[in-house]
């Protein structure tokens, strides 16, 4: 495969992944809190192509589950009825953006049948749907957190690098203060400041805030060092000699030089911030039930029997690895293109 084809393939994967996460309602098969209490920990539903009468069907279909007679929690395939997979079916209603609702799902089966692509958890909730909804929370937290951190970092770095003197030394001491702590300790310390028991929607905002608060120091320092060299460039000096205002110079001449750095930082920071959200939620300091995030989904694995018996509960972990691989690839590609070292 040529480099170009590889790049296009990875780029489309990157976009597809984020599309799925932006529209979890459409791609999921049911809502994240819908329970099937009669089917706790049911394994992933297998898609079949060969009917019981040995005819091949192009449209995949599934069988239902029967509770095994003796063991609670083990299931037998019920071959008496088949449920063909249908596309673009009507199902439970979901919100796309606040106020806009829809009820079309990409995949579904006819009513009594239930489709659990990645199995179910202890309440019989569909792990696949929960994973998609959880991805929305985790990835959005990473994105918005990175946006906040980069925005603050850029402004602080620009001002401190451009003005120099005491402003510079004060902000740099502050940056050092933030960087004197290992990041997880910093995360806990900041989390400890904020209220403990809150609504789930507020928790999301709070998570972003936490991530944004701890993340600004590194970008600020990098931007500052870029600005220090940028402001000595000849065209900047020329602009100043012609009487351009400070704001004009910063916006028109210095910011463009820093943008490439910010882009590289973003690709580097987003996975880290996703991980920050996952960590907090994993430890029970972030998003709470029933709203899923990848952290809370992974936290299920802390229960011994889930860890050992139900392999499909690892799905969010695998999703996390795939996502990080793509992000690391993106960040190294951008870095090679732009040529800004991140140290």
């Amino acid at each position, binding site marked *: 495969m040529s480099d170009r084809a590889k790049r296009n393939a990875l780029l489309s994967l990157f976009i597809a992944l984020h599309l799925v996460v932006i529209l979890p309602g459409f791609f999921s098969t049911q809502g994240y809190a819908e329970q099937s209490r009669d089917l706790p920990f049911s394994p992933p539903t297998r898609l079949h192509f060969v009917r019981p009468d040995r005819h091949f069907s192009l449209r995949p279909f599934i069988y239902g589950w029967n509770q095994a007679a003796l063991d609670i929690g083990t299931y037998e395939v019920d071959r008496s009825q088949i449920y063909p997979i249908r596309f673009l079916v009507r199902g439970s209603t979901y919100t796309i953006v606040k106020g806009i609702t829809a009820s079309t799902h990409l995949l579904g089966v006819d009513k009594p049948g239930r489709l659990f692509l990645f199995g179910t958890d202890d309440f019989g909730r569909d792990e696949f749907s929960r994973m998609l909804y959880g991805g929305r929370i985790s990835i959005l937290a990473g994105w918005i957190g990175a946006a906040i951190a980069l925005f603050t970092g850029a402004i602080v770095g620009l001002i401190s690098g451009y003005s120099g003197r005491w402003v510079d030394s004060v902000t740099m*001491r502050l940056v*050092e*203060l933030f960087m*004197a*702590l*290992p*990041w*997880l*300790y*910093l995360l*806990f*310390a*900041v*989390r*400890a*400041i*904020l*209220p*403990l028991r809150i609504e789930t929607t507020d928790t999301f905002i709070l998570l972003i805030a936490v991530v944004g608060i701890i993340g600004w120091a590194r970008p600020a320092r990098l931007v500052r060092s870029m600005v220090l060299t940028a402001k000595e460039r000849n065209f900047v000096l020329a602009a100043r000699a012609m009487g351009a205002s400070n704001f004009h110079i910063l916006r028109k001449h210095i910011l463009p030089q820093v943008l490439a750095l910010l882009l590289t930082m973003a690709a580097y920071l987003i996975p880290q911030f996703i*991980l920050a959200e*996952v*960590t907090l939620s*994993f*430890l*029970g*300091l972030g998003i709470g039930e029933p709203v899923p995030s990848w*952290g809370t989904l*992974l936290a299920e*694995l*802390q229960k*011994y029997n889930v*860890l*050992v018996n139900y392999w499909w509960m*690892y799905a969010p*972990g695998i999703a*996390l*690895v*795939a996502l*990080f*691989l793509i992000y*690391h690839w993106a960040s190294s590609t951008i870095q090679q293109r732009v040529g800004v070292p991140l140290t």
Partner: protein
Amino acid sequence: MKQLAVRLGQRLLLLVGVSLCTFALLSAAPGNFFDDLKLNPQISPATVSALQAQYGANRPFPERYARWVESIFRGDWGYSLSYHCPVGGLVWQRARNTLLLTAFAVLLAWMLAIPWGIAEALYKGGWVDRTGELILALLLATPDVLFALLLLLLAARTGWFPTGGMSSSDVTQLSFAQRIGDLSRHLFLPVLALALTTLPILARHVRSAMIGVLDAPFLIAARGHGIPKSRLLYRHALPVALNSLISLFGFSVGSLLSISLLVEVILSWPGLGPLVIEAVLARDIYVVVAATMFSAVCLIAGNLLADFLLYCIDPRVRTAQS
């Protein structure tokens, strides 16, 4: 030496700043330990306010800070409200275990990373390099949470390793050598989880540092003199590449401390991790402050150690000041 002393002074000032900030922020936090007591109908409001007065929770901030600083010199580091004992002993007991874990992890990670990076640099572009990079990319993309969970699964499934704790229940009856064996069996999984998480970053740095050195003219000359390859690599090339790696050492200490917090919780290692999370949940702020201070001290100590090593190893750094 003067340089190092100045650095030391700066770092100490930084520590004071860190303490002031964390202390101020945590005391400004909404809600405190006594809020839960107020909710309890069996405890009268009078008792709660008496307790608050006893622990000085309602005093102004400067006074509380001053008291806290004073308690540091007594070795107390404040009083833990949920454990009913001075924080110093409590945190130190746990911090010791965290340090033990981190020290071994640093050792293991570097012992793996150096040969790994050198092998990759040596066969740059070959299959060794490419498969090595592939594995590193996978390791880098695997979050620490997942590593710990997978290792826990390994322990649970095979029974080769204990699934948590620091010692077996019959540890008091074992001989000294058996105790060491027992401890190392308990240490293995957490150390492995930590080392695997930091390995990719370290190995990549070793690789790029070595690639820079391997093309240098002095190495070609040395090879021309017929110096054997292993000696060439470890005695001639590595010391030159070491400079940038030593600064990385300080960083690796900090990141390992972070990761260990999480790994300890999952693999039930009795270190700082579980303690800090309980303390955050219980609003036991002195414990949080002490743990934060401990982490800052470790990170700064790691950086200072790196500075010192650099000073010892690189004559340029040593002579630059005079």
